[in-house]
Every structure is written in C-alpha cells, then in structure tokens.
C-alpha cells in the first residue's frame, strides 16, 4: 500500500513549526537555559525591532560593499593572472609553489596582519575577501581555459584568426562554464571572508554587530543576525543562478 505524504512545502512548514514550538516550550519551562540558546519569541521580537533600525541597514550596506569590492577585485585579478598562466606556462610553473603554499594557508589567520596593514575599516575586510576569492577564481580560470575544445582552437587557427580573435571568440566563451562555477564559489567565499574578518575586529558591518551582540549575551540578537546572514547568502546565490542562466543559456 502506498503511504500518502503531505506536499513538500507543508512537510517543511510543519517540521519548522514543531521544532520552534518545542524550543519555545523548553525555554519557557526552563528545560533549556534561555540565556544561552534564546527563544523563538525573543528572536522574532528582536528581528522585527531590528528591521526598523537604521543601524542594521547601514551595517548590511557596509558588509555588502566590502563583499562586492573584494569579489570584483579578487575575480578580476584572478582572471588576469589565470590568463597569464595559460599564456606563459613557464610563469605558471615558477609561481606554482607560492600559489600552492598561499592557497593551503588558512587565510583567516592573516586577519590580524590585514588589520595592522589596512586598519579596522573596509580595507582589511576587502583584503580578507580578496585573498579567498582570488585563489578559487584563479584555479577555475586556468581549468576553464585549458579545457577549451582543441577542435575549436584548430579550426579557428586554420581560419587565420589573430590571437585576440582566438581569445575573445573562442577561449573566453569556451571557458565561461567552468569559470562561472568558480565565480559562484568565489562570491560565497568573499562573503565568508568579509563577515569572518568583521567578527574578529571591525568598526562596522553585520559581523561586527553579531560579535557585539554575542559579547553582551544578546543571544536572541545573535540568532536573528545569523538568520539575516543566511538570507543574504541565499539571495546572492539566487543572483548568481539568474546570471548563469542568462550567460549559459546555450548549454
């Protein structure tokens, strides 16, 4: 006999309501300690108040500005470097040990240095986001350009294409699918890097607000901001998906 399940959306709705109700019940009866885990009602309250707070939007803008700048600068630098690697393999071979060493270094450990060099403002956040985005986009740029169909290159060469034509008409569009998956990951990591650096030390930003709330035991606020960050992350992904569909409609 076939068991009938509720529609997907209803299942999730039911699950979340039940979990929140259990949490709220636990918090009210004292089964779980509210000062450590907060309560759904408190979180809802904070979120609603915070929504009308100018500071939230200012901090959000600050974080997004850092993310955008570090992503843009990191990707542009990585694509240029990737192009240089593909054009001059000997240069790539020379750089390889340094790139590999920097790539395995836990970049978040460089935040103290970045703060020393670039201050508590946006500079150190961009440096952090950049350092993560750069290596991800670099490897996908190289892989994408190396993976371009040799048939396409051969055909275009027999037609007598200039190296510029070959790059803009064949190599670049051919590399876009792989490059794009790197850009998508690069954006997530720029977000991670920026917020991570803000949590450690910052004048402004969502990460800074989160860190402040945690240090003052405003647990409901911490949850609320985590929820905001997740929402921003999802929206960034949606944006990338939309862009990908536009750019790669031919796939």
């Amino acid at each position, binding site marked *: 006999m076939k068991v009938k399940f509720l529609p997907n959306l209803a299942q999730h709705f039911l699950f979340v309501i039940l979990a929140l109700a259990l949490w709220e019940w636990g918090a009210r009866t004292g089964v779980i300690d509210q000062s450590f885990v907060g309560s759904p009602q408190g979180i809802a309250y904070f979120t609603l108040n915070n929504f009308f707070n100018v500071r939230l939007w200012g901090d959000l803008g600050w974080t997004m500005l850092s993310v955008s700048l570090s992503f843009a600068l990191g990707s542009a630098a990585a694509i240029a470097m990737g192009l240089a690697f593909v054009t001059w393999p000997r240069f790539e071979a020379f750089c390889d040990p340094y790139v590999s060493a920097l790539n395995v270094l836990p970049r978040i450990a460089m935040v103290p240095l970045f703060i020393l060099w670039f201050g508590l403002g946006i500079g150190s956040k961009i440096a952090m986001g950049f350092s993560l985005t750069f290596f991800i986009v670099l490897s996908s740029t190289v892989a994408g350009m190396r993976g371009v169909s040799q*048939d396409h290159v*051969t055909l275009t060469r027999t037609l007598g294409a200039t190296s510029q*034509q070959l790059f803009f008409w064949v190599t670049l569009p051919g590399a876009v699918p792989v490059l794009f998956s790197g850009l998508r990951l690069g954006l997530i990591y720029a977000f991670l890097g920026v917020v991570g650096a803000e949590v450690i030390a910052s004048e402004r930003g969502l990460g800074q607000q989160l860190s402040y709330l945690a240090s003052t035991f405003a647990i409901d606020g911490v949850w609320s901001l985590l929820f905001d960050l997740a929402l921003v992350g999802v929206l960034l992904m949606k944006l990338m998906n939309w862009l990908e569909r536009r750019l790669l409609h031919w796939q």
Partner: protein
Amino acid sequence: MINIQNLNLSFDGVNNVLSAIEFNLRSGEFVAIAGPSGCGKTTLLNLCAGLVQVPDGQKITVAGQAPALGSPQVAYMLARDSLFPWLTAIENAAFGLKVRGLDAAEATDRASEMLKRVGLGGYENTLPKALSHGMRQRVALARTFAMPSPLLLMDEPFGALDAQTKLQLQDMLLQLCQEHERSVLFVTHDLAEAVALADRVIIMSSRPGRVIADVKVPLSRPRSIRQLQTNDQFHHTYAEVWRHLEEGWTHHEG
C-alpha cells in the same frame, strides 16, 4: 593545387612519420587519402593546412605557396562538427567569413544562403544543442562552403556519423563540390567512401607512411552515392584499393 615532392617527416628526428611522399592535386580534383590509422594521413593534411611546420628543405606548395595558417585559399573541416555551442546555426555558418574579415551583414547573407542550400532553412537561430549530429555536420559544411576558398582540406568529416546520415552527407558534399568547383583533399579510413567520392585514391602504408598506390577512380561525374552501390566499376575499384591496402600490411609485416 597541392604539390608535394619527396617529403620526409619525423617529429623527434628518429622515428619517421612520413617517408618519401610524392603527389599532386590538380585544380578541380577530388583526391582521397586512405590508410590504416596512425599512417600519418592526418599529419599530411595538417602539413598542407599549415598546422604542422614543414621541415626545412622539404617541398610542399599549396595553391602555389608554402603552406600557411589562415590562407584564404584553404578551408579546413574536421571529423567532429566543431560548432561553437554558444553560437546559433547561422552564426556558426558565418564564423569562417567573420574571422576572415568579411562585413558582418554580408557574412550573414552568405551563411543564410548556404544553410538553405544544405537543407537547414528555418534553423538559422537554432543552437547546436538542439540539432542532430547530421544537422550539425551540415552546418559545418555550410561554414566551409560559405568561404570562397578553392581548396578544401577535410579530415574524416563524416567519420562520426551513422551509416545512413553519412550517405546523405556524402551526396551533399559531391553536389556542393560540383556547384562551387572546389578541389578537395579528403582523409578517410573508409575505403568505400574514398572510392565513391574521389577522382583518385592515394593509399598509404602504416607508419612510416609511404604512398603505396595512386588509384584512378574511373567513375564519371555527377555521381549519386546511392546508385554507385549497384555499379560494377565502383566495386571493381573498391576491390583494387583493398588489395593495395593489404599489400601495405604484408610489406609492413615482412
């Protein structure tokens, strides 16, 4: 169109890839090169296209000049359709003209004409992913014939197609060559295809590639591939070509 005299080639200076190759391709002629895989027939074609550097002191002339990449005299076609998946059928068909600097509107006009000629009118704005293998290779034919290059270098252009589609496209190629008066150097490992299409079949031995035989195909033009299947001369020539190819094997083993 092509003149090769006593050509020897080795990539590492030790193992010969091609040995004492000698042949002529006259204007308007359709010459097929057949031979076992690895015999250097594609290398020979790539030498003519300028994709492989001609060694010093070797004599090859293509359309009266040393082979060079991008010569407007030459159009090259590969085994796989090598259409760009991000371009529509008409953009693909116009690609060769575009690279060679023709005005965009004129290139599109010519490409559109050629697409109609290969039976793909109405598919101008279709992306390659939505076309069958046979249709894609027809777009590649349109791209090749849209260019006015008098010499075509073809590397097993129908090698990846199923038998029926192959016959259709062979017929189409013959018609197009007839209409556009092209000289063709056609590499294939399919002997029936070589005999059906060409005026002469050059048979090469396995590595190092030598010319074993240069067989004249006594079939008149215009030809129809389907009618050839019941033509005695076709089968006779096919058997002769086969015999030469087998000779190549025994020589090699001996």
